[in-house]
């Protein structure tokens, strides 16, 4: 019986890295869900090349998955990792720089042959040349052991070798003293129709787990306490999935059929994927010929009375601009989800960035106000999608939702709501027989919102169009006063939304003091972690995280005034900071990063500290 050292840690950062065909994303997500089922809070950060299969063994082809899990304070995927799992030499080469001192390396020894070393640019084998002596290295012949474990399987050698990710995952489960139950279920359901592959994967998983148990060379095991997240029932969820669920739920709540029109684009495509499986909820999905058609079809569907949504990313958003402006002019509800990625142009398709905010705010010809919302965590995508549908249909306006690839691909435990717990959606649609006295197309209520009159109703027959109109009749008009008035109405209507959205609060309940950190979108975790750290150190640092960016919550200025300094961390070169400076005449300080990766805890902490001096 071997003696195992048990390492107690409140949280652990682990990184899986391998070739883009090695299945690193798959085991990353499965381990994320395993963390959730073992009651750890977790956040992940997947990184993969935009090529489907970049050249094997090369640095360019490395796909990796970083995850932090632990107690309730885990809010980011972590800066440096405690444990690094590498499937080949290139993966080590790319990932080693962020491994903590004395961190653990689990290396697939079979991925370090001469060919792999050469491709990765190593002159000697780092597993043998002593260069890793500052780390705890466990060199395991994962490939060999997997093939050995599957010696009775009828699969080809190549197929057996492909099970090495499951061996790895099994071993990692052992390392963290976890049962791999959810992974067993996953394999059973995924390969239910391919029993040979199913059995091989299960066998490899258990072989990896047992290897930890029996191997004489592995003498450590981690123990990470469960998170205290409050009583309730949770599930694992990814951002794009949450977004899709938010849309379906809003459709059910509003009793409006959902029509989702989209064109494939990374990283938004998964929303279409999820929604296309919900046909039995009356969801209609339409994969259009291009981004323009997707947005236009959403407008057509909205005119017909559907809850119309389109999803895209930066380059597609550019193409939708023209039709988005039509929706502004028609005053029809359409939700436009932009899962942001690095830009400009094709930019960084698989990397995160928050650089479409000013485009969402101002990127349209004419004075064309559109509400802008942004989710702050993967599960918040659900609530923001719901909220966007609510605002769109109750204010008769297109709404832009700014998610990003980090939220889209991030997974977390989610205390999901029940339909009955969600707020009502009071939309402006008239039933097909509802009569409105003296109806005309731009007749408005006290919030300046027009009716959503739909074809089929004999009492509300009307035409609308992109031309300017007379506010009293809805007929085309080029009169100077009419354009002035309509422009003001469109602006005022969007401002009126501020009356109905919740007041802003600070995340960490620090409401006055030295520094206010204002963030939006996927930087929530790192900003909150930094704020809490500084609060523990005695600094009065508040954190406001904006989910409603246009219009801002009506009390935002009151909060800002109570702090000496305002710092705005963003993954762009300074966009929210411009809006805040513009609206509140405050000398907000930008903190920016555009590397396609998250802001690190330490770098933001250091920056705020310098500002606190």
């Amino acid at each position, binding site marked *: 019986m071997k003696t195992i050292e048990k390492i107690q840690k409140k949280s652990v950062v682990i990184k899986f890295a391998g070739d883009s065909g090695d299945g690193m994303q798959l085991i990353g997500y499965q381990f994320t*869900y395993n963390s959730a089922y073992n009651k750890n809070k977790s956040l992940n950060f997947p990184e993969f090349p935009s090529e489907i299969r970049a050249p094997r063994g090369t640095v360019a082809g490395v796909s990796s998955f970083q995850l932090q899990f632990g107690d309730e304070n885990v809010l980011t995927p972590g800066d440096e990792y405690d444990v690094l799992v590498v499937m080949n030499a290139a993966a080590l080469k790319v990932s080693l720089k962020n491994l903590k001192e004395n961190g653990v390396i689990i290396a697939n020894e079979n991925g370090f042959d001469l060919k792999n070393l050469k491709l990765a640019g190593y002159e000697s084998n780092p597993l043998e040349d002593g260069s890793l002596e500052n780390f705890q290295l466990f060199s395991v012949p994962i490939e060999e052991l997997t093939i050995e474990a599957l010696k009775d399987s009828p699969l080809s050698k190549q197929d057996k070798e492909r099970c090495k990710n499951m061996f790895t995952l099994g071993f990692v489960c052992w390392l963290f003293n976890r049962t791999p139950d959810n992974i067993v279920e996953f394999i059973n359901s995924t390969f239910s129709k391919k029993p040979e592959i199913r059995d091989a994967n299960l066998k490899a998983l258990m072989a990896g787990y047992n290897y930890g148990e029996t191997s004489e060379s592995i003498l450590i095991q981690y123990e990470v306490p469960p998170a205290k997240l409050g009583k309730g029932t949770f599930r694992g969820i990814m951002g794009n999935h949450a977004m899709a669920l938010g849309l379906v739920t809003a459709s059910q709540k509003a009793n409006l059929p959902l029509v989702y029109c989209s064109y494939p684009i990374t990283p938004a495509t998964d929303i279409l994927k999820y929604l296309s499986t919900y046909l039995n909820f009356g969801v209609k999905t339409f994969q259009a010929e291009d981004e323009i058609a997707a947005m236009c*079809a959403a407008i*057509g569907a909205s*005119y017909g009375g559907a809850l119309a949504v389109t999803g895209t990313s930066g380059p597609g958003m550019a193409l939708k601009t023209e*039709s988005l402006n039509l929706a502004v002019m028609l005053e029809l509800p359409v939700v436009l989800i932009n899962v942001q990625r690095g830009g400009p142009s094709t930019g960084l398709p698989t990397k995160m960035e928050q650089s479409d905010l000013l485009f969402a705010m101002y990127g349209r010809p004419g004075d064309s106000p559109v509400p802008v919302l942004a989710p702050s965590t993967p599960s918040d995508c659900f609530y923001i999608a719901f909220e966007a549908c609510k605002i769109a249909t109750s204010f008769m306006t297109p709404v832009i939702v700014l998610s990003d690839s980090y939220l889209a691909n991030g997974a977390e435990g989610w205390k999901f709501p*029940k*339909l009955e717990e969600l707020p009502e959606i009071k939309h402006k649609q008239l039933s097909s027989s509802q009569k409105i006295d003296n109806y005309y197309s731009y007749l408005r209520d006290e919030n300046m919102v027009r009716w959503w009159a739909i074809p089929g109703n*004999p009492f509300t027959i009307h035409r*609308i169009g992109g031309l300017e109109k007379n506010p009293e009749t809805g*007929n085309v008009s080029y009169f100077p006063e009419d354009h002035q008035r309509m422009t003001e109405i469109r602006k005022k209507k969007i401002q009126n939304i501020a009356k109905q959205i919740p007041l802003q609060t600070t995340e960490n309940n620090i409401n006055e003091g030295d520094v206010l950190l204002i963030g939006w979108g996927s930087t929530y975790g790192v900003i909150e972690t930094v704020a809490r750290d500084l609060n523990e150190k005695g600094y009065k640092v508040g954190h406001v995280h904006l989910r409603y960016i246009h219009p801002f919550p009506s009390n935002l200025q009151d909060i800002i005034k109570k702090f000496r300094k305002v710092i705005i961390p963003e993954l762009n070169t300074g966009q929210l900071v411009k809006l805040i400076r513009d609206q509140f005449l405050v000398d907000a300080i930008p903190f920016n990063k555009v590397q396609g990766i998250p802001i690190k805890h330490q770098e933001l902490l250091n920056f705020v500290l310098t500002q606190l001096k």
Partner: protein
Amino acid sequence: MESTQIKNQVSPKDYASNQEVKWCPGCGDYAILAQIQKVLCELGKKQENIAFISGIGCSSRFVYYMNTYGIHSIHGRPIAVATGLKIARPELDVWVITGDGDCLSIGGNHFIHGLRRNIGLKVIMFNNRIYALTKGQVSPTSEQNKITYSTPYGSIDYPINPLSLALGSEATFVARTIDRDLKHMNEIFKNADAHKGTAFVEVYQNCKIFNDEAFQRYTEKGQKENNTIYLQNGKPLIFGENNQFGIILNNTKPEIINLNDNPIPHENLWIHDTKDKTKAFILSQFTFPGYENFPSPLGVIYQTEKASYEELLIQKMNEVSQKRKPVSINKLLSGTKTFSYDE
């Protein structure tokens, strides 16, 4: 009693909105507008169940003149907008009003994909072979060497062939008519209405201001008889002021026969078959390079039956709903695997 009956009688005027029509005097659009109003009236359509979706251009102002639902959308996109409406509301009659620039230039992508999808839209393309609203530039259907505001020395662009393009896009209904032949327009619009799936109708339309007389050879007495051929399914291809010309098909090569000189029996002439796509393609080439001497065909060039997009969509939704166990939205939200915290 009698007076109420008269009052209840629907007339084409009931399909006209209260807006003043603002096309130029003498524009071909007037005739098309009047004919569509007449057709809808004759078919007894209810105004509230009809939507007209247009793009940008002179023709697209059409929408404002109809007492139906409608969107005057953006340049080139009416088919895309109409597609969304038809997906959301398959039971509506959705008509698209577009022009040659709107449909074939800026909207070309939506045109080909709308047709291949076979979604139940009636696409009426007004072809005046000019950009008129922007005051006269060459359009994708303008003839080569045309002198316009944007081509003072003559255009070098070759024109596109709308009917061939439609056939190449797997359209299931392809027809051509002309603004000056009211009866023919009436018949073709009715055929389009009756068609399941996308119906594409090209309407030769005269622009009085920027391209007057572009279709004179197809409209004026003494010219039109020899320059047009009215197609009727199952009937031989015969034209000319005295029906003196017939067309035969030698393999894939059409030939004009003077029946006075060569009185071959009608059954030996090319018999129009709307279901024959290959022949339809040859017909669509008439008047274009290689076929300059042939008359312009008017009528239904091609028509076939194929399930429409909206039919297939509804069918698919029903199939999936029947196959999959009904689940509540709460079940969808919880997913298949949950876990609980006690504190």
